[in-house]
């Protein structure tokens, strides 16, 4: 056992309202700069939809992530040997059109317009070329099923569905969508790190944050190809790649990342997970349908005395362990098993997990052409608007049983609370449903508390970062306090 601690995340999709406040908090802080405009370290996608960059989930096209071939785990992009041979050749990069051409407008045309025949307007110009342009794509182009016949209909996750099922998804009786907010997964087995020929990408030991060193990056962009989530971006102004930094300057000062702080749907949770680094390789090698369970096994129980002992041996302090025990992420992922990784079949062991959304019950059109809702009181498995297979394609590498288990627990919890707070569901029926969902009144009560009532400090349990010690490794901490560490970017120089 080799215990590592990782700052990890849960996104509760049932609560996500697709507002994109997260994306904009991030944009404001980090990527409003030239060359970074098209970077959305955090973005929110409508599902079904093609995502950003378009069709990024289709690894037949992009070759991101890992594959098991010949009993070996290797980058899907190519082997390391081939990479070194073809270092200047990278055929699987998304092009500008797969993202979008960032633009602004001739805003000044309003105040500065001379007297003219008709009312002035401002028109779009490219931020890349500075020329007039037609807007044909954007970072959130299919929001709320915009262009559903083109985008929703071509969601790669629909491949497992029959043509009839696909078509029905856009009929009034079944139509559905939900949101998938995405940031870097800060994977335990990051393919971007593996793909980087310059060794510029690393996973921080203390918190698992994956960073691209802005000193070392040579701009090869192998990371962009290698990441199956397309969460590394190439800054065309600086010639270096950049990605989500999980707001480490905020984390290090006890503040939640900006996207999480600003999450007004209160869907996001952040906390530590302990995991066994010795198991990364064997976990990533498991067959598709075992991946979710295997990753859960790799994640360790901070209450287990054996884990605690080893963690101390591996340099993890008491305060950090305490934080791991209070971690909401640990509860959702390991204890309750209702948060799932996105596309585990990419085998990067993403350390960001999703609670799948509950969706409205279906309807039907009766003989008179009238809409009739299915009679289920709440969302139910039987009359779900979206096939379980679709969710399984997203979150369990196709294992429908895992998805069903999560939904059963979520639905049982609601019925239990209904019985408790209204009483139009009998306690006997509620008890029975809990048993069928393999849960208990205590567990669903705990889930409810964290889902519905958790305040800021319960949603974001940030470990102490011991910055004084970290800085002390480079410089005497007090020297840093009194000296240039406090933000001198340019040192004063004398004379000419």
């Amino acid at each position, binding site marked *: 056992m080799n215990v590592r601690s990782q700052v990890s995340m849960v996104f509760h999709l049932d609560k996500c309202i697709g507002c*994109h406040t997260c994306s904009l908090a991030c944009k404001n802080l980090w990527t409003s700069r030239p060359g970074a405009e098209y970077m959305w370290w955090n973005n929110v996608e409508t599902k079904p939809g093609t995502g950003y960059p378009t069709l990024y989930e289709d690894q037949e096209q992009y070759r991101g992530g890992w594959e098991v071939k010949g009993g070996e785990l290797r980058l899907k992009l190519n082997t390391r040997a081939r990479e070194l041979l073809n270092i200047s050749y990278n055929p699987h990069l998304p092009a500008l059109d797969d993202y979008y051409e960032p633009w602004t407008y001739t805003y000044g045309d309003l105040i500065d317009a001379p007297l003219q025949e008709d009312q002035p307007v401002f028109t779009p110009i490219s931020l890349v070329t500075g020329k007039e342009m037609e807007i044909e794509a954007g970072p959130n182009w299919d929001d709320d099923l915009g262009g559903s016949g083109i985008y929703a209909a071509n969601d790669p996750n629909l491949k497992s569905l029959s043509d009839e099922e696909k078509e029905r998804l856009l009929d009034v009786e079944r139509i559905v969508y939900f949101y998938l907010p995405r940031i870097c997964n800060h994977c335990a087995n990051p393919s971007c790190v593996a793909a980087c020929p310059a060794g510029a990408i690393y996973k921080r030991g203390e918190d698992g944050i994956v960073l691209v060193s*802005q000193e070392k990056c040579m701009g090869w962009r192998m990371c962009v190809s290698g990441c199956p989530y397309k969460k590394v971006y190439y800054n065309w102004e600086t010639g270096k790649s950049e990605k989500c930094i999980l707001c480490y300057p905020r984390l290090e000062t006890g503040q939640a990342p900006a996207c999480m702080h600003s999450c007004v749907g209160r869907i996001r949770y952040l906390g530590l997970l302990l995991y066994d680094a010795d198991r990364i390789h064997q976990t990533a090698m498991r067959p598709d349908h075992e991946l979710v369970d295997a990753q859960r096994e790799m994640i360790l129980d901070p209450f287990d005395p054996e884990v605690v002992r080893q963690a101390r041996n591996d340099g993890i302090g008491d305060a950090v362990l305490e934080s791991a025990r209070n971690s909401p992420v640990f509860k959702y992922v390991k204890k309750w098993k209702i948060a799932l990784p996105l596309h585990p079949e990419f085998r990067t062991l993403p350390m960001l997990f999703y609670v799948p959304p509950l969706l409205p019950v279906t309807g039907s059109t009766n003989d008179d052409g009238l809409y*009739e809702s299915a009679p289920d009181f709440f969302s139910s498995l039987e009359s779900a608007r979206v096939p379980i297979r679709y969710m399984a394609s997203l979150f369990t590498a196709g294992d429908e049983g895992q998805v069903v288990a999560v939904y059963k627990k979520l639905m049982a919890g609601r019925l239990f609370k209904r019985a408790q707070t209204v009483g139009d569901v009998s306690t006997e029926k509620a008890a029975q449903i809990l048993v069928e969902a393999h849960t208990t009144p205590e567990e669903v009560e705990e889930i409810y508390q964290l889902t519905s009532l958790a305040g800021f400090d319960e949603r974001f349990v940030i470990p102490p970062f011991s910055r004084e010690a970290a800085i002390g490794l480079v410089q005497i901490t007090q020297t840093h306090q009194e000296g240039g560490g406090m933000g001198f970017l340019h040192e004063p120089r004398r004379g000419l």
Partner: protein
Amino acid sequence: MSWIRDLINPNARTWEEFYRNRWQHDRVVRSTHGVNCTGSCSWMIYVKDGIVTWEMQATDYPKLEAGLPGYEPRGCPRGIVFSWYIYSPLRIKYPYVRGVLLDAWREARSRHADPVEAWTEIMDNAEARRQYQAARGRGGFRRTSWDESLEIVAASLLYTAKKYGPDRVAGFSPIPAMSMLSYAAGSRFLQLFGAPLLSFYDLYADFPPASPETWGEKTDVAESADWYNSKYIVTTGSNLNMTRTPDVHFVAEARNNGSKLVVLSPDFSEVARYADWWIPVHSGMDAAFWMAVDHVILQEFHAARQVPYFVNYLKRFSDSPFLVALDESEKGYTAGRFLRAGRLARYGSVENGDWKFLVFDAKTGEPRMPRGAIGSRWQAQKGRWNLELKDDLDGTDIDPLLTLLENRDAELPVTFSDAANNLTFQRNVPVKYVETADGRIAVTTVYDLLMAQYGIPRGLVGNYPQDYNDSNAPYTPAWQEKFTGISRNTVIQFAREFASTAEKTGGKCTVIVGSGVNHWYHSNLHYRASIAALMLCGCIGVNGGGLNHYTGQEKLVPAASWSTLAMALDWTASPRLQNGPSFHYVHSDQWRYEKGPLEAQPAEGRFARHVMDLQADAVRMGWLPFYPQFDVSPIELVKRAAQEGATTDEEITQWVVTQLKNRRLRLAVEDPDASENWPRVWIIWRANAILSSAKGHEYFLKHYLGVHDNAIADEVAKGSVEDVVWREPTRTGKMDLVVDLNFRMDTSALYSDVVLPSATWYEKNDLNTTDLHSYIHPLGAAVPPCWESKTDWDIFKALSEKVSALSTPHFPAPFRDIVSTPLLHDTPDDLAQPQVKNWYTGECEPVPGKTMPHLTVVERDYANLHHRFCSLGPRLKEEGVEDRGVHIPVADLYDRFAASAPAYEWGDRTYPSLVDALDAASMVLYFAPETNGEVAYRAFQSRERETGLKLVDLAEDNRGVRYDFEALKAQPRRILTSPCWSGITNGGRPYTAYCQNTERLIPWRTLTGRQHLYLDHEGYLAFGENLPTFKPRITLEASLNLVNSVREGKSIVLNCLTPHGKWHIHSTYSDDLRMLTLSRGIEPFWLNDKDAVEIGVEDNDWIEAYNDNGVIVTRAVVSARIPTGLGFFYHAPERTIAFPKSPMRKNRRGGGTNSITRLRLKPVLMVGGYAQHCYRFNDYGPAASDRDTYVIVRRLPGKPKW
């Protein structure tokens, strides 16, 4: 796995400083966004190097009671990008005047030392005036100085006041709650000047007329945390996730606590996907669904089985048991008016007997008069206005009968109407006979009328439905199918779940309703049908229950003190307050495009006239305000009266009344196109008055501004208006000067003559409140006003100084002005008109404040206007503060306040200063019951005197609490319980409306003192809206939308809806780069994929959508989420965004959402002088609507041209 390794060498990680430095900042200040979104989110503004870098949500809201989710964080994608505006190329940094006008001004000014004379010269030159008017909206701005721009404005104001009267100046600013001091700055200036202020809430169609109809209150709702207490949440016309972004988590959290969410919406909206049930009711047909729900509830929970909780609730808190007279005519019986207690021998001598009402008492078997009616509110003997079920005469207990079914003397066939099918039907109703001063009459209860209206037979004969499957009988589940497209089974199941949840929880069902329902012409009926369901199940005045209407940030919490400041009541009584819809309907000549009477009006009687005539009637009878008042300046009028010997105020008033009666003086509304009756100067601030607030925008362009417009509708009112003067040719360019205060070049600024740079929300100190939570927030200045901008407070202060300085030759001394104001709610005017009588037609005498408007002579002092603006006047001390009829004495508090406030001296006296906005903030917070516990305590004392109830305990715990501005900046503070509102917030309890009524027995401010299911005003009887009913949306034919518009090529006619959008708050943020990037770079037009195929449109193609009012040119979003037959163009993007020109309209620029609308006023909502049907600014009157709109959509031919 050799390449996955931890980086050991710390020196290799020193580069991490790169991002740490990016995060560094120098200062963090609390502020919020003064935009009409109802969010009222607390934000922290980050400043670095004197520049605002970004904003992040505050998370330090004090918690409510245990067991509720918290409020943090609040904020949305729009709010978080506000800082972009501050330094953007749209920012207005300097004063601007359009070159054509500036040249004319400078030339005239060079000839005149007196700026007013310079302005006069331009006004006297029709060609010069036309030239600068025609340049409006077409660019050509020139930077100028504050001094020069304010001089132009002040000169035009003084010229107008002198030549026409100050009531020819109009000011518009909406939503005081979003930055109440900035609003107050302008309104205070205007009221000191004597200029009318235009309302917004009704103009925006955000005001729900059903609220005053039912509760005598403009809007009162639960804060969003209380949704969590609801076990059955229904949203209708409210896309919570999109528009209530910071609040909607409470719904998800409630769902996880076992609550059910049902969404009624024609499209699969964001909130629909959040729901358990989505019920796609056809657009504009919601009331049909709810009427059938009510039918099921009445049948199963009231008739077949009685739920004790429901019955008790209706007896105590609704008008259900009150007696209604049945009117007999040749055609049979119809439901008439409430039986007046004073008509009975027993109550013949009670005070205000016409305004007290009767129930049948189960114990005595006699009609009895319970306490709480409006008559007991305004009687000499106080202390009887409460909801105790006691006889107001002798205090004996009353047990009212809900129904006379078991005690009936007879049953009579009563005629009811089905407006949707244009049918009438007869159903028997149980009656009792009562001896009255008018003889023996048949009465029944409201409850029995409801049973008959909804078609619940209860063994009675008549045209009752057989069962739920009777599709011909109105209001059955089968009947509603043809309107809503929803099967009867779904309606029945919904109704059962709704009512049984209420039964099990004591009323914890809520209906969250919004503009998707409220923006229809018949919105009041949609609302009343759902309110009936809530009332029948005892859900109102209960935490977790109630009708929660969230449209527009209308809740200005500290209203009592604020209105003194904002309306300059500390100096002058009788502010000029104008309902916006009427003002624009009349002055922008939209009435001329309407033929009367409309389909929706009665066929005969006093309401069977052109709406414009009814509008004039409403002004004559004091129902609605109207400015300008007369065809003569009100200043001139006082002078004339004096010349004819009228010296006292009373004599002057009487002289004016006589002039009106003899038709020697006319109301301006009777001849609005006469040049002396035009509004002349329009001051716009915190508003987009010419675009997003302009229902019938193209008519604003034509008739107000005199510029090009894209309307092709015919003027058709000629011949169908009777009393109102028809003038030809049509009048264009009525406004002499349009002034806009703005921080960004929005559409209104672009079309204005003078643009003054205002500070943004991060550059000023102000206050902000909302319905959606119970905190009061500051706007804090993170940086000083940028470039040459000033705060609104300082701009109006500077303007007042300029006006005072320029006034000397023209208004050297104080002078008198006569102000006309309508009959007002929450005053004894509630009892003005037991019957409708029009003095104009000789039905009665004109009596100010009774049969016609109040007329008040006030003194104005332009020379000292600036001093008055800057000082807190003595009337506050004398009059106290007032809100909703709660009068609070503050004389000693005024002295205490004066002792610690900065002083302002003028005219040998010292006053508390209002020089700085912070001074004004202190004043508002000090004298409001919601922010000063002592004032709350006194307010409850005042309510105790009125009601005879013990109430001060609600204020005892907080008596010593007082918030000042610094406290608010430190942390959001929760508002205190106040009798000016109806919720109880003590102990962290979430605010919900009408708890004070249900728990403390304070009456609603209505006719009976109860919640009204029945409306007995003659207008409601005439319009067939006395009972809840259903009227479908306006048909294409009746809309007159497509009379002249032709279909060319492949095209389709769609009902065009303009819901609130995702990427803007009205027009604000619609031009923001971030929002445009996350959407589609433009505001697109959404349509269904099958409709798109029909007209050959693919996703992102350019389309034209047009009707007789105007045209929109934009791109299409093709989506299966939108139902066929509907088009969505989300509300109010700036028309300055890259919208191309329209080939269909001579290649002129396409417009915005309001380009396809025209104002339609619903006349029944004009009635006044009758309890809850009484005017109050922003709280009452005919609301605008925009949803009953149709367009032709086609693919744009050729390439788009800009």
